[in-house]
């Protein structure tokens, strides 16, 4: 019987506590439940904080609160005894109790006749006691006492949870504000800046959009401090921050990294010009005379360095370092200006040409600067692909090419990768594409080369009428290829290679086919990156607008495929994704086949 009642207590407890409960909620619940289960008139909880000797009580009525407090003052009573001895204490009738004379007398005066105390235990120690009162003498049965102790045990656990959480929340709130912001300007400090940079990297990876870092430094700030003192120096900085802020967009983060050094993280940018415009705006705002002290007549100036970053982990910090170096170049040029970092390999093209669904941008030979000659760093792709036992990725990319052709309504497809110095190497092609791919590589011209050079897609719907690549067009049409479409494999400002689609008859891609081709290019890009670096550049499920990427079976299958192909699990995920797209489109079904060992990827062809 007791078990049944107790169980309903615990059921109710669990329900009440599914809010982010406080210690008060637990204590209130405890009191309410105890009154229902046992023949008592009231109760209280005494919490001892042994370190400081503080106590805290919660009771069902005021008279009891006084009695509980009294125990602490007197240094005697059942609650203290239960707390100290770790055993339940029973006083069925305070009128005949001889153990706690002073306390019992006070309790009788307050109208209490029977008192039972139970320790609140945790991790081998106690932190308080539960006390139950009746106005008439009464005896609790052993079963009732055991029930009371069970409730006390459960309540003790929940109390510890609530207190731990309350303490950590209070501490966190205080610390978070203090630890992450600069006290003078209220701006994010270096630590929070690092956090923001990491967030920007993640977003960049997800959205395939680079971001920029601007490093700002006040020109000759030391002179301000030396001439006017640090107090004025501080006021100058606060006023400067106000102005700089006005020049920023909502997507920009301004942080103070040290004395007179500030950093702006610019995300969601339309192109390089927008960031340079922000830098110039900030520089202009700084030169307006600052209303600090009448003595300070001369305006101050700042120098800025701009650098770009992509989504690879650590790219933000690296850009910070490069922006700092660029800022010194601006200073050497006399200050009061900005300089753009030149080591990261030019600026990224506007993002519009990169994302699926925004239409295909076109490169013509007249626009954009020549982008070749930056391929050396990409060579590892080829090395990485070659290090994989032949057959696995080779077969896969071949399948991918066939899938690409099928899904885009073309006849064949090939993948070329940057082999250094802007040269392309053919790594895989579906049937029929290989001769045309080789042709481009041999001639050093063709749609793939142009797409690679400009970092934008190239359309050649009728090669016969095309005058851009005379040698290639002649040879290709002679081999039965009359249309070609090339899509660069772009990650940030890095070009990994080109996916090219071929048609035997002239004809353009319709918008849907273009979109499929762009999607495919990203899939191939991610596969190459995953094989090279161990992880793909972006969340592949977002590419597909499907919600299966965190499905258990897909990940289990990826774990298995990583063993079958001797590649990382992240790369295996990209392989599964690519394979499913090229074959059936059903990733989940493929995963289940792998788990059930109905399908396996083999290292040998």
């Amino acid at each position: 019987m007791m078990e049944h009642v107790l169980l309903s207590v615990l059921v109710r407890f669990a329900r009440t506590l599914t809010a982010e409960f406080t210690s008060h909620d637990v204590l209130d619940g405890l009191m309410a439940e105890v009154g229902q289960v046992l023949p008592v008139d009231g109760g209280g909880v005494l919490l001892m904080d042994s370190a400081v000797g503080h106590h805290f009580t919660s009771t069902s009525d005021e008279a009891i609160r006084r009695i509980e407090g009294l125990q602490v003052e007197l240094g005697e009573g059942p609650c203290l005894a239960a707390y100290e001895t770790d055993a339940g204490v029973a006083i069925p009738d305070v009128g005949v109790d001889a153990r706690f004379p002073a306390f019992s007398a006070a309790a009788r005066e307050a109208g209490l006749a029977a008192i039972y105390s139970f320790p609140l235990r945790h991790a081998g120690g106690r932190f308080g006691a539960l006390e139950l009162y009746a106005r008439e003498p009464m005896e609790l049965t052993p079963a009732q006492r055991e029930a009371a102790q069970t409730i006390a045990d459960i309540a003790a656990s929940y109390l510890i949870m609530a207190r731990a959480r309350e303490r950590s929340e209070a501490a966190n709130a205080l610390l978070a504000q203090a630890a992450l912001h600069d006290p003078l300007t209220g701006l994010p400090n270096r630590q929070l800046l690092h956090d923001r940079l990491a967030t920007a990297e993640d977003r960049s990876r997800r959205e395939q959009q680079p971001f920029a870092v601007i490093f700002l430094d006040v020109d000759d700030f030391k002179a301000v401090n030396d001439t006017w003192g640090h107090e004025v120096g501080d006021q100058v900085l606060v006023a400067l921050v106000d102005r700089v802020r006005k020049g920023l967009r909502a997507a920009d983060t301004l942080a103070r990294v040290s004395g007179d050094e500030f950093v702006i993280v610019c995300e969601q940018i339309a192109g390089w010009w927008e960031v340079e415009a922000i830098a110039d705006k900030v520089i202009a705002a700084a030169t307006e005379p600052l209303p600090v002290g009448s003595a300070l007549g001369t305006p101050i100036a700042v120098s800025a360095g701009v650098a770009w970053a992509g989504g690879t982990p650590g790219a933000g910090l690296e850009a910070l370092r490069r922006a700092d170096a660029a800022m010194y170049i601006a200073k050497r040029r006399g200050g009061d200006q900005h300089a753009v970092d030149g080591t990261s390999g030019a600026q990224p093209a506007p993002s519009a040409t990169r994302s699926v669904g925004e239409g295909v941008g076109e490169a013509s030979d007249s626009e954009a600067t020549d982008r070749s000659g930056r391929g050396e760093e990409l060579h590892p792709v080829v090395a990485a692909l070659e290090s994989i036992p032949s057959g696995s990725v080779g077969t896969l990319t071949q399948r991918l090419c066939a899938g690409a052709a099928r899904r885009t309504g073309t006849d064949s497809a090939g993948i070329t990768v940057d082999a250094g110095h802007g040269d392309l190497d053919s790594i895989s092609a579906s049937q029929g594409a290989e001769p045309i791919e080789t042709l481009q590589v041999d001639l050093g011209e063709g749609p793939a080369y142009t797409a690679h050079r400009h970092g934008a897609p190239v359309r050649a719907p009728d090669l016969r009428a095309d005058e851009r690549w005379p040698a290639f067009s002649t040879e290709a049409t002679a081999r039965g290829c009359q249309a070609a479409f090339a899509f660069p494999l772009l990650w940030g400002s890095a070009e990994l290679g080109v996916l090219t689609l071929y048609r035997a008859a002239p004809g353009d891609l319709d918008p849907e086919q273009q979109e499929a081709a762009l999607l495919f290019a990203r899939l191939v890009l991610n596969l190459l990156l995953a094989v090279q670096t161990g992880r793909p550049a972006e969340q592949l499920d977002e590419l597909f607008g499907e919600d299966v990427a965190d499905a258990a079976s897909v990940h289990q299958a990826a774990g298995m495929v990583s063993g079958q192909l001797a590649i990382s699990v992240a790369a295996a995920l990209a392989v599964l994704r690519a394979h499913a797209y090229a074959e059936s489109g059903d990733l989940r079904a493929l995963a289940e086949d792998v788990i059930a060992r109905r399908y396996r990827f083999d290292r040998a062809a």
Partner: protein
Amino acid sequence: MASPRRARVETREDKAQMSTAGGSDLALQQQLLDTFVEFADTLVEDFDVVDFLSRLTKRVVELDLAAEAGILLANSSGGLRLMAASHERSQLLELLQVEVREGPCQDTFDTGAQVVVADLEAEQERWPTFGARALELGFRSVVAVPLRLRGDVLGGLNLFSTQAGDMDHVQRSVVQAIADVVTISLIQYRELEHSQSVAAQLQHALSSRVTIEQAKGVLAEQLKVSPDEAFVLLRDYARSTNRKIAAAATGVVEGTISAQDTVRQEGKQ
């Protein structure tokens, strides 16, 4: 250093595990009581949320409330994802994934109310894919209970039985209480550095689950074992090296823990 109380609980727990189905009502209630005490006790410590939830689903089976059980949580985009299951074998996983698109758990998540299907055969048209698959796997009845947090629903606890039949009032409230304990454990789950929103914690818990699936796959492939056995190896390795399952899984996925390590550890036990 175990407290006297903990020792007492464990003795009772052993007793609970030994008693078979069909024991007296009183025995069942005693087992349930012990289960609640045990859960509350675990949550006080720095507990392993994956281990805890997988133990909890197993306990639901031991208490004869279901033949198999699973917990699904909502991810940041509101889709339901597997968090724990009493049986790691892939059939149940598959079934729970079918659940992701239709099924009692999806319904309980959408409505915040318990969903009880006493006989799947009689209600096949309600969830055509899920119903057919569940029957095929030998399940006849299903109960889904919401994981409630204030006004929100975080996910659901799913119970599958091989026999048709409804739960009585007491069983339903017990099952809801167990679901509430799951919610409490998720509130208590503080793996993240800073105090985070419950949504962020759920996402974090789910991503640790993703890593565990990957590790299971790695072990299953390299050791030629079933996913269920792979999970046991991973869990035992984590326990014996005093790590959390998620941390051990990360080690396996990143290659710092080899498949052979987990077997060697097993041999020592």
